[in-house]
């Protein structure tokens, strides 16, 4: 049986090698769903304004800011991003004040300034995956949210309801105990393609 599987895979590999190159998935895909740090300009302006100095990451106390290599295209090289599932933004706003280039607009560390200006993305709950929506009271995302009862409310069985005040910091997605995560932040920069 193993031998047969091996032969089959060999045949598939041979076919893939012989197939015309257009059949192979050559198109570059976005490697990850990513967020820009808080206070970021819209994607096009951000790429033009960011000077790739790395100060936003260097001041981030949470070390959630990472930098693109060449995997996301040459123009995005060395620009900062956040993958919320790995580490969310704690909304300290230090990076916005550290940014010299204006790619991140300087913001005060107050709830008003954050709610008014930060829009990294918006959390979306997948009710088929969410434990609370499946009848097992959880509420972890609600407790992780820095804007509790403003951006996220809970209903019966701690079922999360995200509203438009969500700034997309990603702490809920980081904390979600489901795998794959039932709540995820849809980045502001991604445009269409992700369900709202």
């Amino acid at each position: 049986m193993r031998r047969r599987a091996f032969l089959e895979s060999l045949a598939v590999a041979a076919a893939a090698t012989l197939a015309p190159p257009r059949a192979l998935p050559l198109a570059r895909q976005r490697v990850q769903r990513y967020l820009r740090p808080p206070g970021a300009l819209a994607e096009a302006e951000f790429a033009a304004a960011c000077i790739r100095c790395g100060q936003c990451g260097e001041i981030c106390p949470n070390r959630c800011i990472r930098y693109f290599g060449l995997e996301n295209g040459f123009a995005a090289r060395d620009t900062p991003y956040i993958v919320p599932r790995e580490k969310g933004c704690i909304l300290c706003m230090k990076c916005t004040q550290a940014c010299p280039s204006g790619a991140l607009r300087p913001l005060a560390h107050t709830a008003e300034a954050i709610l008014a200006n930060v829009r990294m993305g918006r959390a979306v709950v997948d009710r088929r995956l969410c434990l609370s929506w499946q009848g097992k009271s959880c509420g972890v995302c609600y407790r992780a949210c820095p804007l509790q009862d403003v951006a996220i409310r809970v209903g019966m069985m701690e079922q999360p309801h995200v509203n438009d005040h969500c700034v997309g910091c990603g702490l809920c997605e980081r904390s979600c105990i489901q795998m794959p995560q039932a709540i995820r932040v849809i980045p502001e920069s991604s445009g269409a393609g992700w369900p709202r």
Partner: protein
Amino acid sequence: MTMNTRIPAPRWRHLNLLRWVTLTTVFATLLLLPALHLYQTYVAAHAYDLLSPGEQRFYTFMETLTSPFTSDPARDLDALKGTTWSANIFGLKLSDPLAALSQVAAGQTLYLPFLLSALIPLVLTLILGRFFCGWICPATLLYELNSNFGLWLRRFGIHSGNRRFDRRLKYAVLAAGLLLSAAAGAVLTAGIYPPAILGREAYYAIAQGGLGAGSVFFAATLLFDLLVARRGFCRYLCPGGALYALLGRFRLVRVRRVVENCNDCAKCNAVCEFGLDPLHDRFGQDCTNCTACIAVCPTDAMTFTLRLADVPPQGPGHLGHRYRKARPGGAASRSQEAA
């Protein structure tokens, strides 16, 4: 007799040692700041017990290092961030003029706080020329060590590359970098400018868990310098160097040759990293005021001067045999020479 005619010159020669100290300090700071950042995040996380033994040793070391200066590292060390590309030093934001220019090219917008942060370096460059290249640039330390390595290889009969190209090539690189940045809508010059690359790579290596793509580029420039042209990238290709050369064209502070003290030994030409011709008073806009020629000169014939242009060629040095052959009078005819 002729030795008595030497004009006493200020002792600038120790500046070259100071320059090496400065370069080393900047480079060490470039490595220290990411380490401080890492330490800050450990402090902020209150997680000493969760660190690995190696990380705990690092934590203890950084604690020893910073405890004389701060009792609250997580907050206080925020005052010192960045690289030579753009830095925040106790609230003073300084940026590379090339960064400002590239951002303007990429976005066609003017963000005043950022442009202002490039003002001090800009003014200093207008006065001192390419001083950044000689005195501050973290890549310069490695490039000069690379040059010295190339010279050392000569002992074994290995001759490193010493080809010459047109110096104006770097202006084309600068123009192409700015045009491509404008076309792409992204600051692409940051990816081909060694000090910016080194600053990021140091940060990536220490605090982000690995070197990035820029280190490959930088290694290639080191190889180019070693195999093709001594200090070739800085001389012929660096976009930042091109910008400072243009800005420093009418710089005020210059090195000049004191012809009365010069004996035509040409050590200044040999030591010049940028392949300039101090022996014949041709410094041009590529001189970084690095003072290597001042330090190497055996007769104190190199000094600083405040002029907006190089001294016109002064002819052979008065202590050299060419001058003495042409004018047996020597010191007596010096006034005619100047006239």
